[in-house]
């Protein structure tokens, strides 16, 4: 009996040891970053881990009061807002034709769209740049939004189609018998029932678009349209080794994501992994 208790004590302390150690590994960089913004450079150099001796808010205030910061957040909001809306509308419409309508070449078109899941945007980045340039869309929001939509569609169509196919078939047949058109059926019956999948796909695209760096990097040269990841790297280049300012800037820019995560954690975890597991 005592033997069992001992071994369970060992395994329990191993469990807690591993959990706490991993939590420390995850949280330490956050701790250093958030506190670093309150420190002076000299203090940062000798004590990156300790609490700041005096809580110096200059770096934070400079960033929060700078119109550049807010303009970049606004740019990101616009780019992400359009990307998410366009993906939700166009992908759900396309998926509906796959799940509820019969037409020649349906399976071929579906496979064609799913092909988009197999290669990342980076593979085609040079011709994409040339295309966006030739369309006159460099330095515009659309030049970032359209490629982001194009590379978000495949996964979204797959998720929507899977969901739509699980809707009860009777609903559709009854509606058609009653003379309801496909279009009306989609907008008034399918869409209201699809809130869970709209949230899943929406979160998935939102996080991707908000955090995206490579498309804006290639397409945008004009600081007036920079989203926040470009602004962050620009700030880093500008302030070089003034790490206290840079750490403060990081803290400010990750706040929206962290706040959104804590507020909507269920949807976020479902959107980022549930989609994966169901798909």
């Amino acid at each position: 009996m005592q033997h069992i208790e001992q071994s369970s004590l060992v395994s329990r302390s191993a469990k807690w040891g591993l959990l706490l150690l991993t939590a420390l590994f995850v949280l330490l960089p956050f701790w250093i970053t958030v506190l670093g913004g309150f420190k002076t450079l000299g203090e940062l150099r000798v004590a990156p881990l300790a609490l700041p001796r005096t809580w110096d808010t200059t770096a934070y205030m400079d960033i929060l009061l700078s119109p550049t910061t807010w303009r970049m957040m606004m740019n990101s909001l616009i780019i992400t807002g359009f990307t998410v809306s366009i993906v939700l509308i166009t992908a759900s419409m396309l998926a509906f034709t796959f799940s509820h309508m019969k037409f020649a070449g349906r399976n071929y078109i579906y496979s064609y769209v799913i092909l988009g899941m197999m290669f990342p945007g980076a593979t085609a980045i040079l011709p994409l740049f040339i295309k966006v340039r030739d369309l006159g869309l460099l330095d515009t929001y659309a030049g970032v939004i359209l490629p982001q939509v194009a590379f978000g569609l495949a996964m979204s169509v797959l998720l929507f189609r899977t969901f739509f196919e699980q809707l009860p078939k009777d609903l559709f047949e009854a509606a058609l018998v009653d003379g309801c058109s496909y279009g009306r059926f989609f907008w008034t019956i399918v869409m209201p029932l699809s809130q869970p999948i709209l949230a899943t796909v929406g979160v998935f695209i939102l996080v991707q678009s908000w955090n995206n760096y490579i498309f804006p990097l290639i397409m945008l040269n004009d600081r007036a349209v920079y989203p926040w990841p470009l602004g962050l790297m620009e700030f880093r280049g500008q302030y070089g080794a003034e790490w206290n300012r840079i750490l403060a800037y990081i803290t400010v820019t990750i706040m929206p994501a962290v706040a959104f995560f804590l507020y909507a954690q269920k949807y976020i975890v479902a959107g980022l992994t549930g989609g994966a597991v169901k798909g």
Partner: protein
Amino acid sequence: MGRLRDWLYVQNTGGRLTTLLLFLPPALMIFTLFAILPIAESGLYSFYNWNGFVPLADGGRWVGLRNYEQILGHSVFHQAVWNTARIVIISMLIQLPLAMVLAMLIASKSAVNNVFRLIFFLPFILADVVAGLIWRFIYDGNYGLVAAITHLFGLEPFYPLADQSWAFNAILVVVVWKYFGYHMMIYIAGLQSVSDDLIEAAKLDGATPIQIALRIKLPLIWPAIRLSIFFSVIGALQFFEMAVPLVQSGGPGGSAHTIVTYLYEYGIVRSRVGFGSAVGVILFLVCVVFAFTYQRYVMASHK
């Protein structure tokens, strides 16, 4: 005319044709124009020597397979492919097992477990550039955590990211830091579909927790495991954004290049559209071949 009208009338029952005409084109056009066409054009451009500033017909020089020959014979590209493979290897050996152990420890629902889940998932919601920049500070030999450690032991300042044999290992740590929580969440979702009755029955039969984990849980969540392996390979193949703030131009001596940073450095930065496109085509082929074989032989197999 009459017949055509009749035919259209039948075909358009319930607004069928109208709906197809409105629902199909928007997504298909954006997808074709901004995803499929560019990759097809990569194929064309890859046979040229071209800077992209003048039209291809005027400024492009046909070089046949020269770009591909150069890439495949370039030692920096070999290093980039090897580093990409290292991300996959570390993922299989460290990241996924760690994620699995943690998932099993905190899969049951409780307040404490929920807090741990939130903490472990937190880095995943950060942008890759942010994760890279935070660790750029930690690895700074003059300011960061590494500086504090060398200072504590009275050692010489050490810059892991500037050291040829350390730079990429340092990047791998950041990869694990940012992504293990994501894989853990995939496993937790898989574990929650394992029925409690089964576990209870095994316990009654005298199975130890480790036996239950290895013989029952692990085989049952194989679908989640093969999915997370798929994502870590695809992630490794497109690895780029995190590296940007950590190392410049592929790090010391190009020792920290991955396939996409190589594409960026030798295609985009140097305005060599043909060369960069050829790298893109190679990457595309690797992705598609991997995705097809994986789908066919791993995802499609039952259990």
